[in-house]
């Protein structure tokens, strides 16, 4: 009989990681051998992996008394969970979008790998986390990442499909992929906006100032403006196809820099969320 909840949590976490690895492999096989059953297997295994992953997150939550937002393990693991959950939900509702798993599932697997570097970190959160704005700020930061990733996945599949339209018949046609990419970019623009606004109101409630030009705040604002510029190119200059695919990838790179890079290289009031690990 296993007594320690930490061991159970660890087992659940590794089960989910293994499931995401198998799912990634299935999507690669689907792309390489064009067997539609492989994408179904990839989606099902990803959905199955969500079960132990949810258990791992809940066990940690019960142990430390707060949600997944205060260490590299908690944040990245929750981001991976949300990525997989959205991919599964999209794949089940719009079957043509299941193919995005070929990019999203390896990304989720990599997030799990990075998360485990801080598995041992368990800490209480600062008192300023006692705020409803926290949930909006952090929740939409996670959604921002997921939808920026899906926009990038649409862009990558567009580039692949456009290179050999006849070879990758199972992927949606380029026009539709272009539209999906734009749609995901708009949702991530919304999520980034909510993240910034909620963070700003949270800062005002906690410190009496809504904006402090903290490196993460600045990076988020610059990214939001960059998204605005990309949307202008799309709407006013009618950019689409290859140029928008590359711009979607630029947008995703900015999202990664804002969420994961700035916090590692510059001192910021946000540094608690990537604490731990190497």
């Amino acid at each position, binding site marked *: 009989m296993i007594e320690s909840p930490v061991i159970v949590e660890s087992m659940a976490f590794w089960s989910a990681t293994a499931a995401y690895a198998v799912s990634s492999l299935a999507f690669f096989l689907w792309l390489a051998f064009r067997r539609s059953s492989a994408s179904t297997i990839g989606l099902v295994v990803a959905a199955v992996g969500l079960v132990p992953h949810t258990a791992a997150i809940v066990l940690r939550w019960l142990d430390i*008394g*707060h949600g997944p937002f205060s260490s590299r393990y908690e944040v990245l693991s929750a981001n991976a969970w949300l990525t997989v959950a959205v991919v599964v939900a999209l794949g089940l509702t719009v079957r043509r979008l299941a193919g995005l798993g070929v990019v999203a599932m390896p990304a989720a697997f990599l997030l799990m790998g990075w998360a485990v570097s801080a598995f041992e970190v368990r*800490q*209480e*959160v*600062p*008192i*300023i*986390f*006692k*705020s409803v704005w926290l949930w909006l700020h952090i929740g939409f930061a996670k959604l921002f990442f997921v939808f920026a990733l899906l926009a990038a996945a649409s862009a990558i599949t567009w580039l692949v499909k456009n290179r050999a339209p006849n070879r990758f018949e199972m992927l949606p*046609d380029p*026009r*539709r992929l272009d*539209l999906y990419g*734009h*749609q995901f970019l*708009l*949702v991530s*623009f*919304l999520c980034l*906006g*909510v993240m910034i*606004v909620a963070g*700003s*109101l949270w800062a*005002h*409630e*906690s*410190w*009496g*100032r*809504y904006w402090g*030009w*903290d*490196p993460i*705040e*600045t*990076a988020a*604002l*610059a990214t939001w*403006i*960059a998204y*605005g*510029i990309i*949307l*202008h*190119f*799309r*709407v*006013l*200059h009618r950019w689409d196809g290859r140029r928008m695919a590359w711009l979607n990838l630029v947008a995703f790179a900015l999202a990664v820099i804002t969420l994961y890079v700035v916090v590692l290289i*510059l*001192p910021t009031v946000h540094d608690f969320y990537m604490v731990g690990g190497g």
Partner: protein
Amino acid sequence: MLRFLSSPRLALALLGTTAGYAVVGAFASGLFGDHRPFSSPLFIALIAGVFLSTFACTWRRSIAVWRILGGRPPASAISIAADDRRVVLDFLDGAGFRLNGDRLWRWRPALLAGWLLHVALLVLIAGVAVQLAFYDRGLFEVAEGEMADLRASGIVFGRQSGFLADVAPPALEVAVLEFDPYRHQRGYAPDRFSSLLVRDRGSERRLVVDRAKGARVGGVRLYQSLVTGVAVVFDSTDRTRRAVHLAAIDERLGRADLLDGNGRPFSLEVESTEPLNGPKGTGPVQIRGRWPDRTVDLELGDVVELVAGERATIASVVRWSGFSYAVSPGMPAVVIGFCLVLAASLLLVFPAGLGRLEERDGVVTAIVWSIRGLEVLAQDWENGPQAPIDHSVKEGES
């Protein structure tokens, strides 16, 4: 002028420069110290440029937007035509368009999204401008049992305010009823917690302030800050009570430099057995007066002659705590701007569209327009059960 200001190239150039300036300014500020890059004339000029460009763009596009909302598809609309009205309507219904009279709508409120986002940015920038002009914030310290009048000389320090703000800090008097530097609230790390008595124009209110949330009095918000230390409280012969706040010299020693009754400098010290700011409390403390030529151990009840001949009795050793206040008159407009930005961003997600139904010579034509995905719609129609009708040929024949 309006044409120049509303040009997309100018908008993109201004947005790109603002984003670049923000990144460089914030990073340079972090690396080389605070040189206030975001109150520089260049940055203010950039934001003014963004405001004017956004205003011009919004103004110019207003007519087109209201025309679309009124049911008139723009020139980029496509035609979908068939002999059977049902085929056209079923196809467009599948694409989310709903018939209302002779108009077809898809997410009609979302037709306003782009325009509303621009209006939201204008409100937001205006709110930030009001905030920058009128804001007022500062720091103050209060010991337990002490009443701090924020307008009294020397109470507020580190004050920052906008160029149109009141010249004096808010007319508030603040006393600390209780201060706990290590209050543990379940699920959270121990942190500062205060109970305050605040006098605002004659009325008194008791407020609880912790570091999670400020407390509001009138238009002023009070915040618990991190700094704390020990204070020696004196009762003066004129029955006033004053607290001397000691600065931490090392882990167990606090000191304040004062003048005695003869105008000679001396140091008032408190030495503790446990760390002064440790979670276990200070433990027993020793109060000491240190002159250049002598050191005197002091106790509660001892009388010390302070500057100007004031004789004061040591009443207690307590803890002082730091607070800050903030007056934010621009916040309502900023919050409204935020709400509009979010509403517009949400509407942007929906692929709004409209169509107009026409029937001539037995052919039903829908003039359809959508803010995006029009090519996919046309492609779906061409790939659908109904082959496209060459509308221009039919018109020519008739």
